[in-house]
C-alpha cells in the first residue's frame, strides 16, 4: 500500500461572481506520495490558485473529498482548518509575506507561537534558520535582507513546524534567475534531506522540469499528470 500524503477525489469548487456561478474546479482527482516533489501548472484561469488554496486548507472545496496526511479536511470548520494549516502545511509565497516589525527569528517563530509552544521555540526557530543558511542573519529585520534572504526566511518559517507538505506558490517569481535557482535547489535539498513533500505552483516550465511529477490543469479540469 502506498503512503499517500494527499488524496484528492472529485474536488469541485464553485464561486458566485455576482449573479454568475463560476466553476473553478470541476471534479479533480489525484494523489501525491509522501516525500514527492510535484508541480501544479496551468494557464491563468485554469483553477491553479483555487487548487493551491484547497490543498493548503485555506479554503474548503464545495464538494469532493480531500484527505491530508490521514485527516479528512473537506468538512472541517475554520478553527480546525487553522490547526491543520499550523501542524501540517508550510507556505512559501511569491512575495515572501514576512512581517516587517519582526526579526527573521521572530518571523520563523510565528507558527510555533500559534501552535502554543513556548519552551524550545527559539532553539527550533534557530535550527530552521541554520538549515536555510541564515545563521548570521537571525536578528535582522526583513527590510535589512535581500530578496533571496527573505525567501530563505520564509522557507525556514514553512518548515519550522515539521509539516507534512510545503506549498510553494511561485517561490521564485519575485527573484532574479540566479537567486531563483538557489532557492529552488534549497527547496529540493530540504526535500531530499527531510523528506518533506513539496508542492510547487508555477507557470515556469524550467521549474516544473525539476519536479518528479507535473499536474496540469485546464479550465478547472485535470489536463494531464506526467
Amino acid at each position: 500500500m502506498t503512503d499517500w500524503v494527499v488524496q484528492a477525489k472529485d474536488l469541485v469548487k464553485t464561486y458566485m461572481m455576482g449573479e454568475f456561478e463560476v466553476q473553478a474546479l470541476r471534479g479533480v482527482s489525484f494523489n501525491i506520495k509522501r516525500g514527492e516533489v510535484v508541480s501544479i501548472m496551468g494557464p491563468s484561469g485554469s483553477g491553479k490558485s483555487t487548487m493551491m488554496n484547497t490543498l493548503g486548507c485555506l479554503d474548503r472545496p464545495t464538494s469532493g473529498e480531500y484527505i491530508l496526511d490521514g485527516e479528512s479536511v473537506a468538512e472541517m470548520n475554520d478553527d480546525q482548518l487553522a490547526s491543520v494549516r499550523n501542524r501540517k502545511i508550510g507556505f512559501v509565497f511569491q512575495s515572501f509575506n514576512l512581517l516587517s516589525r519582526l526579526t527573521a527569528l521572530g518571523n520563523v517563530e510565528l507558527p510555533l507561537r500559534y501552535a502554543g509552544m513556548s519552551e524550545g521555540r527559539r532553539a527550533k526557530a534557530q535550527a530552521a534558520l541554520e538549515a536555510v543558511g541564515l545563521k548570521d542573519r537571525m536578528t535582522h529585520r526583513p527590510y535589512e535582507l535581500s530578496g533571496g534572504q527573505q525567501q530563505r526566511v520564509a522557507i525556514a518559517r514553512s518548515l519550522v513546524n515539521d509539516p507534512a507538505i510545503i506549498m510553494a506558490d511561485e517561490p521564485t517569481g519575485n527573484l532574479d534567475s540566479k537567486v531563483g535557482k538557489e532557492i529552488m535547489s534549497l527547496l529540493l535539498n530540504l526535500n531530499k534531506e527531510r523528506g518533506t513533500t513539496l508542492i510547487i505552483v508555477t507557470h515556469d516550465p524550467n521549474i516544473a522540469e525539476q519536479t518528479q511529477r507535473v499536474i496540469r490543469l485546464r479550465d478547472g479540469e485535470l489536463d494531464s499528470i506526467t
Partner: protein
Amino acid sequence: MTFAQALLEALESLNGNKMRSGLTVLGIVIGVAAVIAMLAVGNGAQASITGSISSIGTNLLFVFSGSPESQQGPGGPGSGRSGNNIKPLTLSDANAIADPFAAPSVEQVAPTLEGNALLTFSGENTTATLTGATPEYFSVRNLQMAEGEFINSEHILGRMSVVVLGPEAAISLFGRADGVVGETIRIEGQPFRVIGVLVARGGGAFGSEDNSSYIPFTTAQSRLIRRGARDQVDVIYVQAVSAEAVPQAVEEISSIIRQRHRTPVGFDDFTIFTQADFLTIFESITGVLTIFLGGIAGISLLVGGIGIMNIMLVSVTERTREIGLRKALGARKKDILLQFLTESSLLSLIGGIIGIMFGWLIAYIVGQVAIASGTNFVPIVGTDAIILSTSFSAIIGLFFGIYPASRAANLEPVEALRYE
C-alpha cells in the same frame, strides 16, 4: 498564543506607528483627564459647601412661620385653609421652646427679627442685613468676636442703641474691621454705638454672612423692625443638645407649637429646618452639578473611544495581508481577536493612566488658583473618580475594539492573502 505574548506583540505593533498611536491615546487622555478634573471640581464644590453649612453649627434648627403646604402658592393643596390660619411665631413660642421640661432636647433658643437696613458713618453708607438678636444668638450661631463684645442682657433690658457689625459691613463703613468699637454709626438715621466686630466667616451658603449688623432684640422690636403682631419674631434659632438629638428636638418643638397655635392635625403653620435638610438640599444640587460636569467629560471620553475604533478599523484594513498570513500560519479566530483587542485596550489603558495624572494636575492647578484668589475650595480627586474613569476607558477600549477586531478575525484567509 498566550496573553503575555499578545501584549508584547501589541506593544511592538503600537510602537511601530508612534504618531498614530500617540494621537489616538491623546483622545483618551483628554477624555479621562476631563472626567477626573470635572469630578474633582464637583466633589470639591460639594465639600466646600458642606463644610460651610457645617460651620453654622451641626445641631442648629431653624423655625419659620408658615407651613410647607401654604408655601406652594395660591391654589396649592391646603393653601385655602391653613394659609388663612397662619399664626405668626412669637416671643412666647420661643420661651415655651426654651422650657427644659417641655423640650429636654433643646439647649438654647434665639428668637430674631430679621431685615435689611441702611448703615451710615460720616458720609459712607452701605446696606447690610439687620438682625434683632438676643445674647443666646451668639453661641447658637457659633459666632466669634474679632473685638469688643456681643449683645448682653443689659442691652436687651435697656433697649440700648448698640450694634455689633459683621467684618464686611465694618470695612464698608470704616475702611477697616478693627479699632471701630466706640464709634457711632446711624442705622436708618438713628444713632447706634458700635460695641463689637465679628470674625469673618467667609462666603457662606446663603451669600456673605459678613455683611451684617446685630442690635438688641428689644431695640429692633420697638424701633427698627416693626411687625404686625406684638411679640412677633421672624426666625427662632434653636440649638439642640447634640447632633443626635436634632430629630428629637424637631418632635418636641413641633408638638409645643402645635399645641400653642391649636393647629388642625396635618396643617402645621410653621416649618422647622434642620442642618440635615440644608445638607440634603445642597448635596443634591452639587450632586447634579457633578453628574452634569462628569457627563460632559464623559462625552469627550466617548469621542476618544470612537477615535480608537476609527484607528483600529484603519489598522485592520492596512494589515489585511498580515492577518491573512497569520491565519495561513495557523492563527485561529480568537488569536486574531485577542491580538486586536489587546491593541485597542492597550491604547485606552495607556490613555487612561496618562489621563489620570493629567486630570490630577488640572485639579491641583484649579485648587492653587482657588487658593490664590482666596476661595476656600479644594478639588478632591476621589478614588471613585479614578476607578470610574479607568474602568470606563478600559471598557471603551474593549467596546470600540470589538468591532474592528471581529472584522479582522472573520476575514477569509484566501481573500486576506490576495489583498493588495
